Structures are given as C-alpha cells and as structure tokens.
C-alpha cells in the first residue's frame, strides 16, 4: 500500500497542467539505460500483513522484560519508564515536526528542549548544555573536537583513561582520524587497579584534553578533583563521561572542576531498543559555548513582548560555517531529549532519588551475596554505584553461557576488551531487578560446577 492521496483522475489533471503525458515522462533527464530499474524486493504488504510480520520478528527475540532476567549494562540500562513519557512522545505535534527553524510555530519543541538543557545543567552542575548529540560515544568524540578547536590545533595530545567505555574510545579514534592526535593512557592492558592519579604523569603542556568516566566502565566512583587540578595546572581541559543516574546521587562533575561533562542519557526514559536511538548529552562551561557543536536554544522575547525561545548562535553550525565548523552535526536527538525531560519531570526530584537509591541498594546487595560464593569476588575495592566487575572462577564466557541456560543474562564479558579480565563479568543493577531475581542469580551461580 502507499500513502499517496491522489486519485487517477486528479493525477491525469495534474499531468495535463504540467504538460506531460505520463508520470514516466517526468524523468527524461535520467540516463535512459539506467532509467526505471526493476527492483528485486519482496512484494508489498498490507498494513495488516506488515504488522503481523514485524510482530513475528520482534517475538523471535528473547527480551529482558518477558523472557529473561538481565544484569547487562555496560552503557545501556534497563530502567522503568513512566507511562506518561510515551504518551507525550506520541503527540504528532512533537514527533512529526521538523527542526524548529521557524520559531513562531515551533515554541513547543523549543521550550521543551530549553527545559531539557536546563535539566541537564542542573543535573551536572555545568553552565550550558546543547540540545543533544547522537549518543554518549559521539558526544565524547565531540568533546575532543571542542578541545581541538579551542586550542586551534596547537595542542594535540589526548590523555584517555582505559576505564572509559571501550566503544567510546573506539569512536574517538574514528572521529579524530583527521586531527593527527597523540594518544596516551588508552591502553586496555594497563594496570586497571590504579586510580585516576596514574593519568597525571601523562599530562603535559601539549595535552588538550583528559577524558575519564564517572563512574568508570567498571562502575567505580572516583573523585577526580585532584586529577582535574593537575590537568588545569598544565592548561589542559578535562572531560568527564558521566552516567546520569549516578549523578542523581553523587558529587557533580562541576564540583570536581570538570570543563566538559558528557554522557549517555538513555537511562532517562529511553528504551533499550537494541542500542538506539539514544541520547548523548553535552554540557560545558559558558566560556566554551562558541566551540561547542550542536544546536543550542536560548531565551528571548517575541514581537508581542512574550517570553519565547529560539535556536541561537547558529553561525557556529555547519549550514553557515561550512568547512570551518567544529562539527558537521545538524540533527539532534530532539524527540529523545523530550523523552528524558518528561522522564525527569514525571519522576521529579523525589522519584529520581528513589531510582538512584534503588540501583545502589540492589547492586550492593548483589555484590555482598555474590562475594560469599566460593570462587567469586569483586574485582575492585573502590566504592561503586550500580555496576561492578565480578571475578569468576572460570572464563566469563562460560559463566554467561551457563547463566543463559538458566534464563539469565549475566552481564558483559570484560575479556572482550581487557585481556587481563578474561574471568570477569560486568554486572549492572537497576530498580527493575527484584530481590527475587538477584536471589535466583545467586542460587544458580552457587550450583555452578
């Protein structure tokens, strides 16, 4: 079926107005030998058939709500999403609108994104937030671009902790191919037990940016205040990749002195959706706003004296600055920024604090109980939030396979990225994991041979 609202009679009248005989006659500019290829695609389905076909595909997956107990995290988290969120997203006024280039008829999107920016600055403690990036990984890569632009290419060294999400580090390497950067610290075979101070010796006068994660990839909570002081003493900027749920409880990166705070806001009202689309947040200090990529919404007044909002500082962006722009980004994750704003508003301060506390409590209960099982233990001793590396008596892959046979996604096998952690599983806990689920995990692991 199609969605073309033109009858054959209307079509013929229109063709006559245009002055051609048939629809095919509109394409004379296309080289004849390549014109109108026969596409080898399945025949069209009706809506009823498509709905059934897609439902079949979806139900052939095993998912973390209906089939399996899951302790998978590692950058994507299974949280409860209040019903209100999707009801608001399904408003056609929001999801079928374009980028708010015409502010007179886009104040809904503009004010909602302005509020999203405000929620993110209040959460991180930073001064400005943009309207979002594709995901946490690309937001982190854009932090590198900001630093590169800020030093105008005169500083070329980036110091990156090996405990930043491995995929984020990969994306940074992809993005920075044209910058010819010197990279330090990004070594997965380094000693992972040492704290952030290990990075200090790598920071020098050529360092443009230091990138660390909070809590780090293994869930550990570090206070980066001293590291940031050391970096600033050398003139370098510091970017913290933060988990927004953890920020509901923990000291803000702004209090530690961070220059840029980015991260993945998927935990705030966005479904797992097999990895996307998610929501990269990007916050920084006001002094870097002109080097920050992405859309930005500012407050103003309209010709009738009403408070209103507009896209502002657009001359930084690609459509005006072209090859001199910091980034080529033009979309943001508008609808998902709205999702996270509705999520934060609906739970509110109290509900959000409850979410953070539940994540923390469940993870600590699980850690306590898992440590009691022979051969199992926590890999690191630092405080953690809702995720930790569990050391197992045999390769993580085998443990995960065993758990899957019992209907459990154990977690992320760390040996994929860290050669020294072959027997380690990264496990995440949220408000969605009941005590019963955790107890099942414990029971099943106790029975493992």
């Amino acid at each position, binding site marked *: 079926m199609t*969605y073309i609202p033109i009858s054959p009679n209307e079509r013929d009248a229109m063709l006559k107005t245009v002055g051609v005989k048939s629809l095919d006659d509109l394409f004379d500019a296309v080289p004849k030998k390549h014109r109108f290829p026969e596409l080898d695609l399945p025949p069209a389905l009706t809506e009823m058939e498509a709905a059934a076909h897609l439902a079949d595909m979806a139900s052939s997956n095993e998912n973390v709500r209906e089939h399996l107990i899951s302790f998978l995290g590692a950058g994507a988290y299974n949280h409860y999403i209040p019903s209100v969120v999707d009801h608001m997203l399904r408003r056609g006024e929001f999801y079928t609108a374009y980028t708010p280039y015409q502010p007179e008829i886009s104040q809904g999107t503009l004010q909602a994104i302005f509020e999203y920016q405000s929620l993110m600055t209040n959460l991180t403690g930073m001064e400005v937030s943009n309207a979002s990036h594709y995901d946490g990984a690309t937001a982190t890569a854009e932090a590198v671009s900001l630093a590169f632009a800020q030093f105008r290419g005169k500083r070329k060294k980036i110091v990156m902790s090996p405990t930043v999400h491995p995929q984020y580090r990969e994306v940074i390497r992809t993005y920075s191919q*044209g910058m010819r950067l010197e990279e330090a610290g990004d070594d997965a075979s380094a000693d992972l037990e040492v704290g952030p101070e290990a990075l200090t010796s790598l920071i020098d006068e050529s360092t443009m940016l230091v990138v660390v994660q909070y809590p780090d990839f293994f869930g550990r909570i570090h206070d980066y205040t001293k590291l940031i002081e050391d970096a600033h003493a050398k003139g370098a900027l510091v970017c913290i990749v933060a988990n927004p749920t953890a920020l509901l409880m923990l000291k803000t990166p702004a209090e530690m002195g961070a220059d840029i705070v980015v991260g993945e806001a998927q935990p705030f009202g966005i479904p797992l959706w097999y990895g996307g689309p998610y929501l990269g947040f990007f916050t920084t200090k006001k002094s870097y706003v002109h080097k920050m990529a992405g859309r930005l919404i500012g407050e103003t007044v309209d*010709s009738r004296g009403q408070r209103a909002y507009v896209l502002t500082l657009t001359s930084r962006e690609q459509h005006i600055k072209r090859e001199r722009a910091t980034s080529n980004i033009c*979309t943001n994750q508008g609808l998902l920024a709205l999702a996270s704003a509705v999520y934060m508003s609906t739970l509110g301060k109290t509900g959000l604090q409850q979410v953070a506390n539940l994540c923390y409590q469940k993870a600590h209960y699980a850690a306590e109980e898992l440590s009691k099982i022979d051969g199992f233990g926590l890999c690191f001793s630092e405080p953690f939030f809702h995720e930790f590396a569990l050391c197992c008596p045999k390769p993580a892959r085998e443990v995960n396979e065993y758990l899957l046979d019992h209907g459990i996604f154990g977690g992320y096998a760390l040996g994929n990225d860290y050669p020294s952690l072959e027997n380690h599983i990264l496990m995440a806990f949220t408000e969605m994991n009941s005590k019963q689920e955790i107890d099942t995990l414990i029971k099943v692991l106790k029975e493992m041979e």
Partner: protein
Amino acid sequence: MAKIVEPTIFELSSPGRLGVTMPASDVPTTALPPRHLLRSELPLPELAEVDVVRHYMKLSKFNYSVDDGFYPLGSCTMKYNPKINEDTCRLPGFLYTHPLQPIETVQGNLVLMFELQEWLKEISGFVGVTLQPAAGAHGEFTGVLMMAAYHKSRNDSKRTRILIPDTAHGTNPASAGMLGISVLTIPSDARGNVDLKALAAACDDTVVGMMLTNPNTLGMFDENIEQVVKMVKDCGGLMYGDGANLNALLGIVRPGDLGFDIMHFNLHKTFSVPHGGGGPGSGPVGVSERLLDFLPSPLVGIVKEADDETAPLYGFVTPKQSIGRMKAFHGHFGGGLVRAYTYISMHGPDGLKDISQYAVLNANYLQVKLRGTYKIPYDRICMHEFVAEGQFEGSDIRALDIAKRLMDYNFHPPTNYFPLIVHEALMIEPTETENKDTLDRFAEALIKISEEAKTSPELLHNAPHITPFGRMDEVKAARELVLCCWLPENYDSLP
C-alpha cells in the same frame, strides 16, 4: 518583564509535590558512599503527573507538524509518517532487547537489519551497506572517512581536495572539514547542472573525490551526470552521493548504476522515519565494490550458514580495513531501522516507484502553478523540489516576509535562503503525500501573498499575525545568552 505564555517546568515546580514514585527497596539497606562523594542537593523540579501532562500538552499545541498540515520544506522531505510505524517500533521484542545480548537471542533484530541492508543495496545499486550512522551528516562523515581510507590504502597521499558544487548542503563541506580536507567549490551552469568546464579544470591527482547531491538542491537532475562521474573517476577521485534527495529516485534510477561509489540514505526523509522535532535521524551508507572493506564496523552478516535443520545464524562481522566504529552499538535500530523496514515492506518495488513519481509530479504541478507569479531561475522539469525567488521587482518584500506570511494561511513555510546561489530562495518540496487540493490552496496562498506584497506590504513585514508567537528578537537571544533556567528558589544563589 516579558509576558510568560507557559511557565517552564522549573517554574511549575512546588517543593514536596510527587509524580511517579518507585517501590520501596526489597533488599537489606547498604550505607551510602562516604559523604565527600555525594552531591549536596538535587535542584530538579517537583510536580504531579497531571502538572507534567498539562504542561507538555500545552507546549505541543505551540508546534506546527506534518500531522497538522502542509510542510513543504525543501530538501527535508516532510512526508506523512504512517502510524503503523509507531506501533511496530514499539513491539516489546524490539523495545526490550539489550544491545549486548548474545546474538542467538536477538535473531529477529539481526534478520531485520540484514534484510534492510539488502533492500537498501537493491534500491540504490550499491554492494555494501552499513546501518550504523545516526543521521545524514553522520553518514557523510562515514563516507568521507572511507574516501580518505581508500586513498591512504593505496599510498596515494597527494589527494587533499574535495570538490563540492555551490548548491550543496552545508554539511558536505563541514564533513570534509572534520578530516582537514580542503574544499573546492564547483559552480553550477545556467541549467542548474554542474559546470563541466569548471569541473574539468578542477579534476587532477589532488582530488579526493566529489560530493554531489543529485537531484541537487535546485531540484534539478544533472543532465550530464554520467560525464560528471566519469571525469571525477578518470582523475582517480571517488564519487560521493548525498542521499538527501533520494525521494526523487526510488525505482527511477540507482545511484550505484550511475557510477557513484558512496551514498548516505536519510531514513528520516525518504523512508518515513518521523523528524521528531529535529531528530533522531538515521543515516545508513551504501558503497561500491572498491570501498567494501572500509565500511565501519561492525556490519550485520551471516556468521553461520544454514544447513538442513537450522536457519542461518546472523551476527556481526568486521570489514578488513574498516574505518572503525561510528557510534556505540549498532545504529538507530528501534527509532530508525524498524520504521524504515516497516515502510519499505509495505511499499514493495511498485510502491517505491510510485513514491518518487508522485513526489515529482507534485513538485512540477506546484512549479507550474507558481510560474509567472514567482521567478523560477532554473525553469525546467524539476524533480521532487524546485526553487523560486521570494522577491518582487520594485518591492522591499523578502523571502523571509513571504515565509512568515504563509504561516497566517496555516502552511509551514518552504526552506528559505537556501540554496545560496538563488537570491531570496524559497525552496519548495511538497512530497508525494499531499493531495491536489492542498497544493492548489498553497499555490493560491502564495499568489495572494504576491498581491499583498504590492497592496499592503506591512502585512508581510509584520507577519505572522495568527500564530501564538510573533517574530523573535534573535539578537537579544545571541547577545544575552540565557541558555537554561533554574528552580525559582535557586535564582537568588546564582552568580
């Protein structure tokens, strides 16, 4: 003080109000981390659910959307978004699968991605497709990275320039700029084609390639396209196609057949993924044989062939000389790929061709209706869009005034001031999902506005009049830079 039409979510907050709350903890309590690791306050709003709903409902009514009416934004393809997409992308099996699940547990997702890769290849004539890029610009960056990697793999280090026509979207030069590749702008000729003389002069062994949007942003299909491609390839360059205007080409011609090496798809334009007020988009990239090995990792492939008893096993594969990963995980699966898959499966080969034929018919119909009232600087059969000049002889009315006045007639304005080579450009893309009545009413409105421009120009200068908001003070926004708000009780403690 400016008048507040709708307070912010922070202004609506009242300490102690509760929205959705969480269940009590069912596990023994553990002490929180030491105090110095905790935040001292959480300055976020406190509201009841009904407060939140009424706030966002009110905001939604300030928006104009495709569901409200005609949205002829040139090069943005604001077509109707079928409602079934909204249901399929929210099927629990898609919503609740984690990106790091073992592949054996997500075969449904992987089959969908694999088939979508195959379909996009077939539609475009390419031999490889990555679904990873998150948006069109992200796809462009992916493409430029592959172009650079291709030349590097051949130890061809002389190539430092990329050729981009003067009609190109700003993202094209910006994508090149991200890799430090310099941009050489190629002018268009009087018929809106690439100027072949200028192209010939630019083609040498320093050329990385050319980034071409075809049909271009004038809505013109390049009449010399095969020659353009040949010239770029003869000098060793790669041919990049910007797929922003693919809505004109489905079942009409395949860019791969024309000799293009790379093209990004905008699933949010051509394949009905809604624009969401600015995103998320989805920007898969197709490539020719010689770029297959450079695709970003990972791709979806068959990792274990089928045998008599079992179906093939789908999983992830990494191309040999991959440029690396473009984002975390696998692309905009739920919001982008599932919707596009649904849409393509409902159209089939004939339906896809209908899309482009009617998109082109609608554009030509409008072009004819406006010819004579508005100057059309490149006036021949257009593809899915065309560009008119928003100015009149002896009048100080500008494209911006016309755009704003259109809002009073309940239409979204066309793209204005783009492409840059047309004075006071109004770039109009009706899409295939508009009926004749709408197009007639839109043309009538534009003709009426052209009369108003003569008889009562102030009506245009001060437009819009019937919208909830008037024109904005953009200078104030940029100079005063108020980029966020706070809880009312916190304003006093701010610097």
